[in-house]
C-alpha cells in the first residue's frame, strides 16, 4: 500500500493537513466579536435616544469642561460593574470547569459583615462607634487586617463549595445553593441583622481613592477609581492565566469532558477545589471593595449578585455546559450590563419598565449571539 502525501503542511494554505480545501478567511469568528458588536449597537442606540432629548449618552455636552466624553458617565459605568464584575471573573471560571456558583452573592454578604467588623473606627464624631461589633481593642486596626480577613472568609466559603462539589459529587447547583442559603443566614446571624458601619479612614480609601490618580489620554479622562482598576487588573491577570497556564488548560479540559480529563491523569477533584476557591477569593475581594465603597456592611448585601454575575458571563458567550467561554467575553458582558443600567437612567426610562426591558435585552443579546454563530457555521 503506498503512502499518500500527508505531512504537516502549515495550515492557512488552500489545503490543510487532510488535503481538504481549507479557507481560513471563512473560519468561524471568535464569539467575542458578536458580543462586542452587540455592545456597540447598544451604546449607539442610547446615544441616539439621548440626542433626541438634546443630551448625549457618552459625550461631553458642557461647554465649561474640556473633554470629549462625559467623564462622570464613564466613571460610573466602570465603577458600577467593577464589583459584580470581579465576582463574575470567578463565576466564569467555575462555569468553564463545568460547574455553577449560586452562592457568590451571599458569600459577598457574609464576607462583608465579617470584614467590616474588623475595619471599624473607634470614634465617630467624637462619640464611641454606635455600631460597634467588638470591643474598642478591636477597633482602628491596620487596614491590612480587614483585607486579609475578607479574603480569608471568601476563600474559605469557596473552599467549602469546592470540597463539596469535588468530593461528595453532588451537583454544583445544589452545593452552591446550600452555601447561598447558609451564607445568607450567617450574614444575618453575625450581628443579629444590624448593619455594621463606620470604617477607619484608610479602609474607606480602599474603594473611594484613586491609586493612580485621574488618568488622562488627550481629551479623554478617567478618574481611575480603585474598584475599577482592581477589576481591570484581575481581568487581565485571569485572561493570561486561563490562556497560558496549566490551570487554564485543565479548567477547559475538565469542563469539556470530565471523564476524559480524569482518564488523562488530571487530578480533577483537586483542580475543582482550586477553581471554586479562587471564585471564593474573588468574592472576598469584591466584599472588601463593596464595603469600603459604601462605608457599611449589611446582611442583605450582594443579593442577586450571583445572577448578575452569571448573566454577564452568559452574555459574554460562555456555555453553561462547560468547556467554553473566556474572560474577555465576560468583561464585554459586564460592559453591556453597565450600558443598560446607565442608559436607562440617562433616557429617564420609568423604573417600572426598566426591569422588563432589561430581561428582554439579556435574552436578546444571547439570541443575537447564537444566531450569528449558527449563521457562520452554515456559511
Amino acid at each position, binding site marked *: 500500500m503506498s503512502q499518500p502525501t500527508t505531512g504537516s503542511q502549515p495550515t492557512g494554505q488552500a489545503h490543510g493537513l487532510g488535503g481538504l480545501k481549507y479557507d481560513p478567511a471563512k473560519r468561524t469568528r471568535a464569539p467575542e466579536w458578536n458580543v462586542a458588536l452587540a455592545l456597540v449597537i447598544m451604546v449607539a442606540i442610547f446615544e441616539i435616544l439621548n440626542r433626541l432629548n438634546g443630551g448625549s449618552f457618552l459625550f461631553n455636552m458642557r461647554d465649561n469642561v474640556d473633554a470629549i466624553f462625559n467623564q*462622570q458617565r464613564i466613571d*460610573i459605568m466602570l*465603577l458600577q460593574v467593577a464589583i459584580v464584575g470581579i465576582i463574575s471573573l470567578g463565576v466564569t471560571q467555575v462555569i468553564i470547569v463545568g460547574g455553577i456558583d449560586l452562592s457568590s452573592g451571599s458569600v459577598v454578604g457574609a464576607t462583608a459583615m465579617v470584614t467590616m467588623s474588623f475595619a471599624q473606627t473607634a470614634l465617630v*464624631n467624637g462619640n464611641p462607634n454606635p455600631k460597634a461589633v467588638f470591643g474598642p481593642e478591636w477597633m482602628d486596626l491596620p487596614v491590612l487586617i480587614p483585607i486579609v480577613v475578607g479574603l480569608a472568609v471568601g476563600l474559605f466559603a469557596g473552599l467549602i463549595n469546592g470540597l463539596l462539589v469535588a468530593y461528595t459529587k453532588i451537583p454544583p447547583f445544589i452545593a452552591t445553593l446550600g452555601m447561598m442559603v447558609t451564607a445568607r443566614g450567617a450574614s*444575618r446571624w453575625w450581628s*443579629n441583622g444590624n*448593619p455594621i458601619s463606620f470604617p477607619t479612614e484608610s479602609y474607606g480609601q480602599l474603594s473611594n481613592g484613586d491609586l493612580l490618580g485621574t488618568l488622562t489620554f488627550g481629551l479623554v479622562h478617567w478618574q481611575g477609581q480603585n474598584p475599577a482598576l482592581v477589576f481591570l487588573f484581575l481581568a487581565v491577570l485571569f485572561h493570561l492565566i486561563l490562556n497560558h497556564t496549566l490551570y487554564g488548560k485543565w479548567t477547559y479540559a475538565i469542563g469539556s469532558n470530565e471523564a476524559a480529563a480524569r482518564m488523562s491523569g488530571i487530578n480533577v477533584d483537586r483542580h475543582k477545589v482550586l477553581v471554586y476557591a479562587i471564585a471564593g477569593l474573588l468574592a472576598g475581594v469584591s466584599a472588601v471593595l463593596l464595603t469600603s465603597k459604601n462605608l457599611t456592611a*449589611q446582611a442583605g*448585601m450582594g443579593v442577586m449578585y450571583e445572577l448578575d454575575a452569571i448573566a454577564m458571563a452568559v452574555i459574554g458567550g460562555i456555555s453553561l455546559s462547560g468547556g467554553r467561554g473566556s474572560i474577555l467575553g465576560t468583561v464585554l458582558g459586564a460592559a453591556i450590563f453597565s450600558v443598560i443600567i446607565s442608559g436607562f437612567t440617562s433616557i429617564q426610562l420609568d423604573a417600572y419598565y426598566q426591569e422588563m426591558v432589561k430581561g428582554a435585552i439579556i435574552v436578546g443579546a444571547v439570541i443575537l449571539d447564537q444566531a450569528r454563530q449558527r449563521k457562520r457555521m452554515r456559511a
Partner: protein
Amino acid sequence: DGIGVSMALFDDNFLTVLRNGIQAQADAGGLKVQIEDAQNDVAKQLDQINNFIAGGVSAIIVNPVDTSATQAMTDAAAAAGVPLVYVNRQPINVDTLPDNQAFVASNEVESGTLETIALCDNWAAEGKTEVNVYVMQGELSNQAAVQRTQDIYDVIEAGKCKVKVNVIDQQTANWSRDQAQTLMTNWLSAGTAFDGVIANNDEMAIGAIQAMKAAGIDMKTVQVGGVDATQDALAAMAAGDLDVTVFQNAAAQGSGALEAATKLAAGEAVDQKVYVPFELVTPANLADYMAKN
C-alpha cells in the same frame, strides 16, 4: 435637569405610598422626576446616585436602604455640588449634613413603642396581669424590623407595659402575609396558649389573623398589632380582627421631600431636619385614617 429619586424598595407597601406622594406632588408642580428602585441594595443605590449626577439632575431624593450608609452618598452628591434630600429614614450623618442637603424622616423608635404600649393597655383593660405573646419579625437584615422588635423589649424593660409580657417565640416572616400565615399555623400546631401577636408590620399581622381564623380562634380573645395602617389593615380593624396599628404619613413625607429638593435646587434655604411623627391607630380613631393611605 429634573429630580432623581432613589427608593429603597418598590415592593414595599408603605414606600409605594410615599413614592406616589412624590409623584403626585411632582405632577401637580409640573416637575420631571426620575424614580429608581434600589431593590434594597445599598451599593445599587449609591450607583444610582452617581448615574443621576452623570445625567445632570438638579437635585436628588434618597430613601436610604441603610441609614448608616449615607456618608458615601452625601460625599458623592457634595462633590458634584448636587442638592440631596433624605426621606423617610434618618441618615446617620444627620448632624453633619452639608448646607445643600436635608432630610424628612420619621423615628422608627416610635412605631414599635406605640404599638407595644397600646397592646399592653388593651391587655390590662381586659384584666390580665401576665400575657404570653408571639413576635413576628420582618426581614432580619432590615433595620425597621430590627428596631421595631427592639422597641418591644425596650418597652417591657423600661416598665412602660402595664402587664408582664412573656415572649413564647420570635421568628421572621419576612414582611410577608403568606409566610406569616404559615408561621402562625406552625405555632398553633404546638398548642401553646397565648394572648396575642406583635408583628413588625400589618401584612404579617393579617397573615397571623387569617391563620388564627382558619384554626377557629375567636379574634376577640387575642390582641394583634401591626405597623403601617395599610388599607388592608384598616379593613381588618374595621372587621374587629386587628387591634392596633401605627400610621406613618407617607404621602406627607413624600411631598415634603420633593418640596425641599426643589427649594434647594433653586438655591433657597430650607429646614435641614423635618420629623414626621408616627400616629397610633385603634378602632376608636379608625375613621380618621380611612382615606389617608
